[in-house]
């Protein structure tokens, strides 16, 4: 993950193109809602829905990883936390690492849980 985040151009485009996919996916859900309706059959047996939801979840986790990493490196820094207190500022790097570990674990759990509910 550390190496991926060093390519700012890649993550910048990944976050924006994933957002375009989200809009297309939501338009598809909206269309289904107003035409055939969101039924149990649709959620469990429609392979187009199951595949596109799986891609949605994986891209959402990548999109969130990039966004949360950006937020962390913007605010959980020695300088920004220094506006609140010097002792917080001193432990900024540790706090940011803990925050990054938490959202990485949560993101992986969300992806694994969703994919297993969709397909198993």
């Amino acid at each position: 993950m550390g190496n991926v985040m060093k390519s700012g151009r890649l993550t910048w485009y990944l976050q924006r193109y994933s957002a375009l996919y989200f809009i297309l996916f939501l338009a598809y859900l909206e269309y289904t809602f107003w035409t055939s309706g969101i039924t149990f059959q649709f959620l469990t047996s429609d392979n187009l829905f199951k595949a596109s939801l799986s891609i949605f979840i994986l891209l959402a986790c990548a999109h969130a990883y990039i966004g949360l990493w950006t937020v962390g490196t913007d605010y959980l820094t020695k300088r920004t936390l220094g506006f609140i207190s010097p002792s917080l500022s001193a432990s900024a790097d540790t706090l940011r690492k803990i925050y990054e570990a938490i959202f990485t674990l949560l993101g992986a759990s969300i992806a694994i849980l969703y994919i297993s509910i969709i397909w198993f």
Partner: protein
Amino acid sequence: MTFVTFLMTQNRPININLLKIKLPLSAFLSITHRISGILIFFLVLPLSILAFSELTQNQDSFDNFMNMYHTNFGIKFGCIVLILIFQYHIFAGIRHMLMDFHILNESLSSSYRSAVTTLVLFAINALLTLWVML
């Protein structure tokens, strides 16, 4: 003091204290876009797993969830709030993308206008969402 007048009254390079400046509307949209994104990841997505697993277990649990949604106002209200947070992130996100790809101008006046437009469109969308989901 706005961010811009703050910069104009200072003649020397200084560190901007993010906690002490009054945000322009476009900055308000930017920070609330971030906050809604954080809420989606830590609240909406985890709770949606519960709903999705209930909805896909079997036909009975699907009907049970739908029945609960229509009879328990707390559940209905919670679902609507979570969906509005998600929609807010999308509306503000579309504006950010239109700026990133240079379709919308990033000047102060035009970003103010696009911020107002985004908030108005989101308000209309929120009313439509309430109308459909209530």
